[in-house]
């Protein structure tokens, strides 16, 4: 059983594009200061940032929880948003339900969830339409993808 070293939760404000990404930047600083190597750090912050942007774009609010153990980094991103009717479809590269406004922000090209999955060692989504979505990602610290 991996020993938990750190657990911290951050509130994500939906629709606030000015602040979007601040949490991921903060996580980058926290983990860098703890000595996580650059390649794994990069994977963690990309997953965090794409996840954070998804909440900002689609949900009213959400929470990102960072859990560091001596073996891996875990990210749990839970939102109160519209939910995803077809998770398999949402994971297909290029599939997107983004609005023009989201695309103008440089996101919503159907790459976010695939990017998150690609950078994770374990990745799964739980979602209920009308209630919200939870995304779980695990990045092992001894692996390099």
């Amino acid at each position, binding site marked *: 059983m991996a020993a938990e070293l750190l657990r911290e939760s951050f509130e994500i404000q939906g629709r606030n594009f000015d602040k979007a*990404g601040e949490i991921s*930047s903060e996580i980058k600083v926290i983990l860098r200061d703890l000595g996580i190597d650059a390649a794994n750090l990069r994977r963690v912050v990309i997953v965090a940032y794409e996840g954070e942007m998804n909440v900002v774009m689609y949900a009213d609010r959400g929470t990102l929880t960072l859990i560091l153990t001596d073996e891996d980094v875990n990210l749990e991103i839970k939102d109160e948003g519209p939910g995803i009717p077809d998770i398999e479809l949402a994971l297909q590269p290029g599939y997107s339900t983004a609005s023009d406004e989201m695309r103008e*922000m*440089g*996101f919503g090209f159907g790459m*976010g969830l*695939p*990017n998150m999955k*690609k950078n994770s060692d374990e990745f799964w989504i739980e979602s209920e339409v009308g209630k919200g979505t939870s995304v779980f990602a695990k990045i092992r610290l001894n692996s390099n993808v």
Partner: protein
Amino acid sequence: MKLQEIKDLLRCEVLAGEDDLHIDVQEVVASDGMSEILAFAKSKELMITGLTNIQSIRTADIAGVSAVVYCRGKRPDKKVIEFAKQKRIPVLVTDMVMFDICGILYNKGLKGVS
């Protein structure tokens, strides 16, 4: 290739990082889609984009690129430039379009990431 040479080739104005033009880049990632930058950048690339909002610098920071060139004469606002300075990411702006920028830099030996 040093940022100074890129600045001259692309006739750029430097908006942030005037003292960091000695930085060397070998690869380029070019897109207006931030997820595409995040998917393909490996770190230390030159990032070329026409997206000038705060997310462009946030993405540059998260992806770990060395510098940002804004194309098509699009200029970020002051808040974005200040944010880039805070993150120590050099920012250059050129009137050239992305196609021409990529062609010029490719001709000079820089490669894209894939």
